[in-house]
């Protein structure tokens, strides 16, 4: 590409422009390809739905989904709630469970990673609970807490709590021995070293844990809403299935996917702010 031309003749400025043009062309080409991929899929979906290959009760067209979204903004049937209400109720559950998981999971992981006594006491209990998937906790929590906000938030908490703890634990354990010794020779107490060296160096992995946690929280929320709830996107999808409204089911899936992506983008931005120095 760049080298094939005879570069001896053209000056540096032209060469820079040449490279920039080339890079822009490549970026343009790859974004075109991505758009083509997505558009192709939607058109393919539209063609199949219209052509009757699959009956309309199994697959509705993208246009129907969009128009349903608009009507659902104001009209509560069939699941008895406007889409805005469903989104908000799902978000409150997911974020409360997720928030709780961060407040409890991360400090616990950091303390377990730093203080050996604490680790050898809590670790066995954690290792027993960890392999049990959060979904299987649903029946017990329903018996305890009914199907209200608290039950679902607890299930979501379980799903998000495990990655937060594991990653912050691994993060603080990876603190470099040299930095600890530097602080020790300056006469810092163990807690100061924990605060000034341990926590900052665990940030990278802790953030990775937060990203996994929000993904788990959002995924388990859907399960919790399907198995026992009276509102939320998961419930909306379930109602869609009950009433044979396939467009409502697909709409629910699309909305969940979009919100999930938005949340992880937000967390990515937060990470860049906190760990920005690594990119310089």
């Amino acid at each position, binding site marked *: 590409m760049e080298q094939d031309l005879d570069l001896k003749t053209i000056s540096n400025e032209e060469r820079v422009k040449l490279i920039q043009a080339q890079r822009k062309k490549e970026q343009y*080409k*790859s*974004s075109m*390809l*991505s758009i*083509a*991929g*997505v558009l192709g*899929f939607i058109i393919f979906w539209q063609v199949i739905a219209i052509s009757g290959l699959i009956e309309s009760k*199994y697959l509705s067209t993208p246009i129907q989904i969009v128009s349903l979204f608009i009507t659902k903004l104001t009209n509560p049937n069939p699941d008895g709630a406007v889409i805005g209400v469903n989104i908000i109720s799902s978000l409150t559950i997911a974020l409360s469970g997720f928030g709780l998981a961060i407040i409890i999971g991360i400090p616990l992981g950091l303390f377990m990673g730093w203080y*050996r*006594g604490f680790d*050898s*006491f*809590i*670790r*066995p*209990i954690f290792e*027993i*609970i960890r*392999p*049990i*998937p*959060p*979904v*299987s*906790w*649903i*029946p*017990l929590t*329903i*018996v305890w807490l009914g199907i209200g906000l608290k039950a679902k938030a607890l299930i979501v908490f379980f799903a998000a709590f495990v990655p937060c703890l594991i990653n912050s634990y691994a993060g603080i354990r990876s603190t470099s021995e040299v930095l600890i010794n530097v602080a020790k020779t300056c006469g810092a107490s163990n807690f100061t070293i924990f605060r000034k060296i341990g926590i900052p160096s665990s940030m990278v992995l802790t953030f990775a844990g937060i990203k996994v946690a929000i993904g788990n929280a*959002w*995924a*388990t*929320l*859907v*399960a919790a809403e*399907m*198995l026992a709830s009276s509102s939320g996107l*998961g419930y909306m*999808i*379930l109602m*869609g*299935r009950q009433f*044979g409204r*396939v467009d409502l*089911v*697909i709409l*629910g*899936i*699309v909305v*969940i*996917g*979009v919100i*999930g*992506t938005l949340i*992880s983008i937000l967390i990515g931005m937060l990470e860049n702010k906190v760990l920005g120095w690594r990119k310089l």
Partner: protein
Amino acid sequence: MGTKTTVMSVQEKREYYLKKVYMVLPVISLSLLLLLWINVSKSSAFPSPKDTWDRLIMLFQKPIKGLNIFGHVWASLVRIFIALAFNWTFGIAFGILIGWNKTCKALFTPLFNAFRAVPPLAWIPLITLWLGTGEFPKILIVIFGSIASIVVNTQAGMSNVEKLYLDVGTIFNASASQKLFQIAIPSALDAIFAGIRTSTSAAWMVVLAAEMLGAKSGVGFLITRGMDSIDMPLVLMSMIAIGIVGALLAIITQFAERLLCPWTKKSN
């Protein structure tokens, strides 16, 4: 470790005995957990260890739908093995494709990311609507639920193959296909195995949810059965079984990784 405590200074002795304390702590915490379980079950509907154990024995005498606990666990395991077999072949191949080839990467990644954004369990209503609650839809749900992690890991492994290794290939006149198969794929194996581990645990979680929503066998079915007939010991027993099998799966995949790529084992 020699027991020559005489040779150690005061601080070293303290360190030596502290290690002994750290060995005892886990035993204490486990027994506390057991105590907690026993008196919680006394004061509430939570099943006690004894009830759960009796329920397990009863399940052997009176199997549900002709299967005892091992039968149900096996039914769930069969479903995830089929799903994982598919995921690992197509998932890894697709991951290699979109990780190594630039045009495929640009074409498919946005689509794949959209698919990945949807939580696996959200597909259940759609799939059951399409295909009912037979065996195939459940396997399809497990495939949908666990393919994302294997593809993502493989793609990550393939797209950041170290330039240094490719330079070695250039110096030794490796052809393009040699660079792909002899250098890129082996160096991505670590990431692929990480994908295998996460997809196994994801599959195990999704199969339970799929069974909970409609099945005649499997551990998820046991839980719903227990929930419907308010048979809490059955629910707790199945949860413990799920936990144990989940842990075993994780150990097996780690062991398989150490066997197949011994170089990833951290030298001591």
